[in-house]
């Protein structure tokens, strides 16, 4: 244990290795040149003919040879223009406000001198299984992941950290796979398991936990913009929790990722589709639906289809396809025409652009009351009722029509109309500027479908294209998101963008290896996750030295284990679990836990009706999600707002978070109940404090920590010893009745002590 403030170099297992910097590597087009061209040149000299200047495009070599070719760099027209001092000659022109830096010009010069080679963008080539690199014999390599990681460390002058201790590992694993802390009994059992396979058994146990699906579903719900309201103006109610339950079940059952995707994109079109497969298509219906009076239905119908295309793009392809809605993509090989050909796959549902006054929008189906335990007869896809329109309001002059509303027993799904709705190219992306000169047939982008024999003709074939083993993006994007969830940052940091403007992967071979593990295991998600969790890389200690922080602040090179604050859902669930309040019930309609008074009615026309009893203590995944006013104690900790597809959120550290953890009713009540729980377990004061500490931190407190915690308790006790009224006030926070057999002053002092522990950085951090 460290006893003073000094940085002792011997403590830092992953110390910095000294060595001479490597010689300048040859220019790599994808890594070095393409980002410069993409951000500084392609806006006027790229794929979009609408904005192209001087007939020059620099995104393909065949069109750029005349400005590149030269005996030496200075004679090339490209270099001459970027070096020019005459404002009429200078590129990029000053008006773009994007000047090239000297370093960038030097890169371009070296590249031209090396013959100006181009390369196909890495993410658009199908992954090829890489051979794990050789590493020194004494290195800790538990599986190929470690070889890929270790091979990169010397060039970064880093060395790996040793394994974290076992208590840290079980806490890390339990958070990562269930979003909850381990119980003290689980920690002790793991510490006492001397088997060689103790760690692997633990991983397997957690992968089988039904808490796994509830936790792993959260990033997918963010990507799928799942919510309980429609998202515009009055933000009316909808009922999609059956779809949410489908996701939790699919993850718990370890549904192969290809099926997971196919069923959500086109489950309704599968041969002999089951009801569950049909319900999965709710993924395509989770977008917002405008129901504001006065709106123009055709305008908002386009927005709904656009949202489906963009969500598929971000969540499954890792591409910003939405950029091509108004013009050809500025960076990626996706034309505006191709955008509307993707649009055509999702444009054939019998729907209306405006929603009803509360309730699901057609097409929807009724779900049997026995859900999710369906009989074989019940588990058959059904035909949604036809769209019916009625005048929105009776009074004279209101021309709006609304569709019929589905009640809480229904769920929105995808459905194909017999006569396809024609899809047109929309000029500048506007609903009222269609080019009706020709109807667009559905098609997938040419740059991503070279491996296909024929164009996917409908939504089901689109889904099959997405999960084709030769598809360059789907598996890479999926494994990258797994990595991001465990390590905090993906191998491709820009998880939402694998295109030309995205960040290249830190470990390209590892990314491809994992992608092929996923594909070759028949898309076995838990198997790939297990590989990651079994690696020595994952098991490293997350302690870090100043030198390491300076060399790799975001841990991109993985010379240490992950350490970052819990997701807001896991954070609340952890406090509920530690205090014994958590109600472990899977699925069902959303819960309405504590919320600030008048949270809705103060700015909207709705009133929040808080639940009572057990619904207050459900896992956060079940909290009612109102898109326009999401729960503040979740948003304060950077949860996605669920307005649009989100696959990556920043993690901030703000005083509002401190105020929430210290003062919010949910957390104060949890502290009170944790105090009560420990007081009921034991009479011994030290045991009480240690037990509370371990509920949150899993480990034993150090003697020094215990001394401080005891002092804190005594400080609080002095305060409440003579002030029963204040003690009782504190003990009345929240609806859970208190155990009146406990001494109020002691209980109140311990409540403050537990609240103090819940406010420690460690309590809310996976480390």
């Amino acid at each position, binding site marked *: 244990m460290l006893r003073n403030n000094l940085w002792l170099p011997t403590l830092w297992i992953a110390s910095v290795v000294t060595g001479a910097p490597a010689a300048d590597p040859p220019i790599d087009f994808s890594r070095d040149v393409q980002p410069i061209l993409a951000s500084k040149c392609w806006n006027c000299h790229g794929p979009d003919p609408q904005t192209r200047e001087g007939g020059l495009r620099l995104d393909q070599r065949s069109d750029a040879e005349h400005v590149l070719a030269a005996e030496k760099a200075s004679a090339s027209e490209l270099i001459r223009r970027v070096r020019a001092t005459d404002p009429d000659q200078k590129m990029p022109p000053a008006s773009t406000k994007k000047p090239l830096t000297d370093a960038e010009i030097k890169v371009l010069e070296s590249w031209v001198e090396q013959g100006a080679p181009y390369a196909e963008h890495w993410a658009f080539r199908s992954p090829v299984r890489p051979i794990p690199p050789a590493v020194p014999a004494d290195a800790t390599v538990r599986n190929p992941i470690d070889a890929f990681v270790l091979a990169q460390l010397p060039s970064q002058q880093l060395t790996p950290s040793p394994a974290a201790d076992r208590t840290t590992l079980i806490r890390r694993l339990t958070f990562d796979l269930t979003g909850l802390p381990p119980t003290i009994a689980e920690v002790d059992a793991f510490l006492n398991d001397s088997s060689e396979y103790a760690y692997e058994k633990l991983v397997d146990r957690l992968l089988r936990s039904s808490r796994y699906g509830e936790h792993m579903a959260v990033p997918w719900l963010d990507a799928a913009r799942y919510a309980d309201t429609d998202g515009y103006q009055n933000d009316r109610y909808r009922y999609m929790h059956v779809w949410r339950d489908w996701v939790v079940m699919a993850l718990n059952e370890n549904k192969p990722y290809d099926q997971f995707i196919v069923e959500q994109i086109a489950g309704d079109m599968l041969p002999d589709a089951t009801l569950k497969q049909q319900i999965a298509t709710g993924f395509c219906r989770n977008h917002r639906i405008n129901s504001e009076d006065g709106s123009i239905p055709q305008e908002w119908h386009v927005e709904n289809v656009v949202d489906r295309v963009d969500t598929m793009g971000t969540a499954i392809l890792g591409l910003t396809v939405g950029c091509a809605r108004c013009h050809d993509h500025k960076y990626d090989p996706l034309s505006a025409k191709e955008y509307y050909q993707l649009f055509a796959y999702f444009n054939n549902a019998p729907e209306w652009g405006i929603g009803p006054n509360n309730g699901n929008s057609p097409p929807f189906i009724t779900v049997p009351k026995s859900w999710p335990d369906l009989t074989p007869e019940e588990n058959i896809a059904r035909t949604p009722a036809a769209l019916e329109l009625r005048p929105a309001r009776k009074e004279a002059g209101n021309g709006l029509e609304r569709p019929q509303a589905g009640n809480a027993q229904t769920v929105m799904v995808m459905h194909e109309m017999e006569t396809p709705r024609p899809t047109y190219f929309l000029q500048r992306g506007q609903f009222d500027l269609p080019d009706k000169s020709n109807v667009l047939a559905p098609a997938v982008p040419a740059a991503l479908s070279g491996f296909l024999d024929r164009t996917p003709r409908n939504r089901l074939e689109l889904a099959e294209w997405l999960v084709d083993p030769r598809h360059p993006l789907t598996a890479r994007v999926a494994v990258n998101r797994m990595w991001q969830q465990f390590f905090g940052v993906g191998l491709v940091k820009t998880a939402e963008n694998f295109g030309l403007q995205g960040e290249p992967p830190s470990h390209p071979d590892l990314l491809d290896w994992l992608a092929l593990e996923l594909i070759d295991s028949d898309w076995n998600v838990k198997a790939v996750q297990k590989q990651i969790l079994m690696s020595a890389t994952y098991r490293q200690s997350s*302690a870090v030295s100043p030198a390491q922080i300076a060399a790799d602040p975001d841990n991109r090179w993985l010379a240490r284990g992950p350490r970052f604050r819990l997701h807001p859902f896991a954070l609340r669930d952890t406090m509920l679990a530690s205090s014994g309040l958590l109600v472990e019930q899977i699925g069902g309609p959303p819960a309405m836990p504590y919320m600030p008074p008048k949270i809705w009615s103060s700015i909207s026309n709705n009133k929040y009706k808080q639940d009572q009893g057990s619904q207050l203590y459900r896992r956060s995944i079940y909290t009612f999600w109102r898109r326009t006013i999401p729960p503040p104690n979740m948003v304060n900790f950077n949860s996605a707002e669920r307005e*649009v597809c989100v696959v990556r959120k*920043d993690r901030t550290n703000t005083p509002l978070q401190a105020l929430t953890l210290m*003062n919010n009713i949910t957390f104060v009540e949890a502290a009170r109940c944790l105090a009560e729980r420990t007081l009921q377990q034991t009479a011994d004061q030290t045991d009480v404090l240690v037990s509370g500490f371990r509920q949150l931190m899993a480990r034993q407190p150090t003697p020094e920590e215990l001394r401080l915690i005891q002092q804190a308790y005594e400080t609080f006790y002095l305060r409440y010893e003579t002030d029963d009224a*204040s003690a009782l006030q504190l003990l009345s926070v929240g609806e859970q009745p208190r155990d009146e057999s406990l001494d109020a002053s002691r209980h109140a002092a311990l409540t403050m002590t537990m609240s103090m522990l819940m406010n*420690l950085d460690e309590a809310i*951090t996976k480390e």
Partner: protein
Amino acid sequence: MHPVRELQTHLHRRHFFGRVGVGMAALSTLLSGSSAASAASPAKSSRGLADLPHFKPQARRVIYLFQSGGPSQLDLLDYKPHLQQRFGEEVPQSIYPDERKTTMSNAQAAFATTPSLFAFHQRGESGLWFSELLQHTGQLADELCIVNSMHTPAINHDPAITMLQTGSQIPGRPSAGAWLSYGLGNESSELPAFVAMSSRGSGKTGQPLYDRLWGSGFLPSVHQGVKFRNQGAPVLDIYDPPGVDAQTRRAMLDYVRELNERKFQQMGDPEIQTRIAQYELAGRMQASVPELTDFRQESAAVLQAYGPDVKRQGSYAHNCLMARRLAERGVRFIQLFHQGWDQHNALPNQIRKQCKDTDQATAALLKDLKSRGMLEDTLVIWGGEFGRTVYSQGKLTKQNYGRDHHGNCFSVWLAGGGIQGGMTYGKTDDYSVNVVENGMEVHDLNATMLHLMGIDHERLVFPFQGRDFRLTDVHGRVVEEILRVGNS
């Protein structure tokens, strides 16, 4: 001495000395916080971007008096005397084509020309026209630039207000205040850079507001506006739970810091230092908010100027005075949202109440700022998300009418912070349906606002999904014609 007390004294002394050692860099992040990604340089976010401001700002802060629902330009600021003779005549299709009407009124049998029921007067030396409903605001005529040529593509509340706040009709972009916080950082060490407040008039219930209107979109969420609540604790969870006094809270914070410091020594993660600083700041916020909200420090004259509602939390007048107090304490972007301007029917009665609720306090705020020398460097903006139709929605009578949404023209005004006072900018046709001169789109207004804050709107960008995004998208013109001479 009691052994525990002795220990406490000892500890407190140690804390005092120890506090100096709590990384000053971490402390300096304060309210701005730091994202995990910028943990290595935590001080940066509180200062804003290194290259900002791009040039000398005319305004140090913005107070944006947003009038939600779409105030009627025809009844407030866009004077159309000739309409009186056309009372009840059908508005020509050539002026107002059907496709620009919302589906709430597009199926009406008739579109009767509806002049304002209210008299207009010229005010100030500049002689700007104001409706009789704006008695008090009219007193400040010579400070105001009235823009009658605002226009927006949106015709419904949600897309229109989202457009005004974020530069896009479709949700997902950062709000203007979040952009300013991101670009310029935070001047206050106790309060956020961006505060939003809401109020409701005594007229009809308003259009709903949404968190996205002060949200941070794809910017780091530390830049989102902090919503001051219109009843109870102004900031969520700012007050200690019942039964916890300030001393107990302080003791807990001291122990939290002590234990977190030990953790930092063991783990070395700078994020722990940031958290220590954020807890200190939370404590300071808790101490400063009661002082901020205590209007007893204000003179009777000031309170009287804002009107009797000033003492009622959640009123527009209360929020106006709060805006001045926040401005004095270094808050950079203060936005009020006043609901209730959506007057589809019974407009005359509704708008009277609406103006009674807001006109006096608006004028009081401007005078208050001016008397303190703060109007010089405070940009004040008044306006809603669109205007209203010249035709009556529903039945037109001599005493009553309604007006539907209208995006093709509407009126806003600006004052202070580098704005040329006593002028009108832009003209509409005789019906106040279309702009005929000097149109100003939403992006122009935002570009001008950023310009006055010392920002080139084309250079305040954030890379997201492979593209550099701006508040003004790929549009926007700084409207130099409305800037004080010598300021452009």
